[in-house]
């Protein structure tokens, strides 16, 4: 269905922030889950397993959004509406990137992950 395929472009506007939402939910959920399962007291190299898992989830999301931004930065649609989606979408994905980095910073700074 070409309609649905082409309308999918609208998703470019929100793709970055959907990933941000995912990062948010995963980080919040993982933190609680890890504490419930006692990951705070298990070591993963220099950090606790809980912090390690959180770091991994965070870096993964930042990476994904980064890739998303790179893809969007290269789009050059001819059509007016689509060109707007390219521009605004890139700006939004970039905002989402900054937001995801910022939201996850407490993982680096918090003392314990469970108190």
């Amino acid at each position, binding site marked *: *269905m*070409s*309609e*649905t395929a*082409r*309308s999918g*472009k*609208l998703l470019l*506007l*929100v793709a970055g*922030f959907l990933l*941000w*939402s995912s990062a*948010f939910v995963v*980080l*919040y*959920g993982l*933190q*609680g*889950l890890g*504490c*419930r*399962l006692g990951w705070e007291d298990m070591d993963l190299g220099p950090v606790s397993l809980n912090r390690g898992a*959180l770091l991994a989830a965070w870096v993964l999301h930042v990476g994904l959004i980064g890739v998303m931004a790179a893809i969007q930065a290269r789009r050059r649609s001819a*059509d*007016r*509406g*689509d*060109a*707007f*989606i390219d*521009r*605004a979408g890139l*700006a*939004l994905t970039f*905002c*989402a990137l900054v*937001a995801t980095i*910022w*939201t*996850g*910073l*407490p*993982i680096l*700074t*918090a*003392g*314990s*992950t*469970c*108190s």
Partner: protein
Amino acid sequence: MSAAGAPSSDLAMRLHRDLDRIWSTPPGVGRLSAVNHTIVGRRFIVAAFVFFIIGGLLAMLIRAQLATPHGAFVGPELYNQIFTMHGSVMMFLFAIPMFEGVAIYMLPKLLGARDLAFPRLTAYGFWCYVFGGSILVVAMLLGVAPDSGWFMYTPLSSNTYSPGINADVWLLGITFVEISAVCAAVEITVTILKMRAPGMTIDRMPLFAWYILVTAGMMLAGFPPLILGSILLEVERAFDLPFFDPARGGDPLLWQHLFWLFGHPEVYIIFLPGAGMVSTILPVMARREIVGYTWIVVSVVAVGFLSFGLWVHHMFTTGIPHLALGFFSAASTLVAIPTGVQIFSWLATLIDGRPQLKLPMLYLFGFFVVFVAGGLTGVMVAVVPFDWQVHDTHFVVAHMHYVLVGGFVFPLLAAAYYWLPHVSGKVARYPLGHAAFWLIFIGFNVTFFIMHLTGLLGMPRRVFSYEPGWGWDLPNLVSSFGGFLMTIGFALFVVDMMLHVRFGRTAPRNPWGASTLEWATATPPATYNFASLPTVSGRHPLRDTPELPSDLAGGRGYLGFPREGRQETLGIHMTAATPDQVIVLPGPTYLPLYTAFATGVVFLGLLFKVYWLVPVGAVLMLAMFMLWTRGTGQLRDRGPLPIGLGVSAPAHWEAAGAPSWWAMVFTLVADGVLFSSLAFGALFLWVSAPGWPPPQVIDVQWWQPALAGAGLVAAALAGRRAVAVNGNADASRSAGRDRWLLLAAAGHAFALAWLVLLALATPGPTLHAYGAATVALLAYAGFHAALGCVFALFGLWRSRAGYISAARSLDLRIGALWHGYTAATGIAAVLLVAALPRLVTL
């Protein structure tokens, strides 16, 4: 001048008469059958204003009680009802419906369409809103209004501490109203995406539409958690399933999560439409195009998301680990940035433009002052040590009202004066609006500015009385006096509106010199808005083409002719904005009213615990909804229809992306959020609630849930096959299609049976929240399977009745969406049910 404002050529007159006959609503009692967006939008606005008056009177009662120490006006029980009702009425019955009303009235006109996508749904939403609101108001008159605060915290609102009917009134009444909000959100989203004027690519959309689009999207994601929370709490109260009872594995914090997951975005759901009005009116007043269109769009979308990452900041004092709080604090600091971007855009527009201090501008000035002040105190309470000082004092009441009244009520008043000439066709004759402004503005600040001080002096909120001599006497008296002034101001506003409608002078066309499409209609607008539909080639259609109104009235746009007495408007391709279908809309009917009655039966049955009424009402409701479909669809293929200007497009039931198909997509998005919240709730209880693991878990073999899942998958695949077979051009398709539909129904029925068996096998749903959560997950899947059965059988009936062909496949495609969704969530639900027993022992 004809009513349509056309040069009075015979042709234009005849077009107007024909269209008016097709689009008009019968007079007298027949007005109850109205589905037209102009009429229903107006009704929403009036009803919401009535609730504003009720909420305002309650506020006056609060101020009368608090004016002096030892106020003898009302006792604590009544005071609790009054402030709970004030908060609930203002948030749920005034602010949200008011913005819906404005959107319903304005959107089609701003976008260049003749109505919203689902006129009967508009009307149904209206009746649900009025009935649900009435339940609350009647309860208040009978002295059994909710009294646990507008946030209904458990355990205060659970059976133990609220044994009466009061809390049920809130849970059921508000959920009833919420149905209307979700309906509106779906309808608004589809309308904005699919029904703009040809040529209106999304970068040419009026900013108001952007704001409303984002708001509607937020409602789709924000309301389901609250609806879920209300259902769970009502089930706990009625059937003792202990979701929120810490003694039995539940957790009051789950309620707080679900409530604030809605509650914080709610603040933005109220503010964004206000900001949308500002972004619409301000450039017109400043006589300059808005500065930074793209940046505004970007910041509105960003706010829409970020505001969901803050909910826990209402729970900072509940002992959540610091790291988790850190995530939420971080998001809280971010959300201010996009709001700042908008404020700077507005200021830049003002500075670079040539602002005129007309009445709407005066109210916008009020908005700026009050809202920015509220933002500043917001920054103050965001500082944690400061928050500890003022938490739950009147300082917070002051802050909250600066934001809410500044962010919504002042823009709304500006909008009232701005669009009044459009609604009434008149301009004001008397300068009362200025006096009203100053009374409201001064009264507001006198009431709430000093309240900051009252709060700093330590006066807690939600107390019905206080001792003299603690320094609270004078500031409270001043606040009450200010409230009195404000009330006079609002009364004057009402008088002004009435005088205006009764004695105003006839408005010139487009009195403010605006450039958006709503001013291309006649004022007041004709029933069909536009005699023919515009083509748009920029952001300022009226400025780019000043002769547009007369062209449209003369029938020189799209669809400038009546066809077979049907109500027609255009659908466009979402991004390219080329016409891709003729949307045929239903005319006036009583069905929405009757369906809302049937819905009311369900709710009243639950409220008064007459449980046999509930299924009766539900079946009635379903039957009514089936009747809705009677007038839709066709018995033969029509192919492309001419739409004027040499272009043709198929009718919507022959088009790929019909509005109802998209409506199902967005409904499922909201439904998906509800399911995720439920799954989150189950996991949250396991991870965080006291009293786990449960004494007993369900004893299932892996193949039991697997069979349930298999039934759902079979149904989903059969639903897809039915669509595919239907598309094949061979002659045997109708029989094949029907067989697949039957199989889909059977798959759902099979799954349903297994889900019921699993639910029956769940040990002690009332003994532990584990059992309650398991049953809730199974019930969710079972409900969807049951409806899936109905969808499949409905498709079968439509197919037998001849409504379906290769071209006319809409019913089947909508059904297929449902079947697919049901399989996806159903499998997730049974997986979770099967996994929980293993998880809880970890």
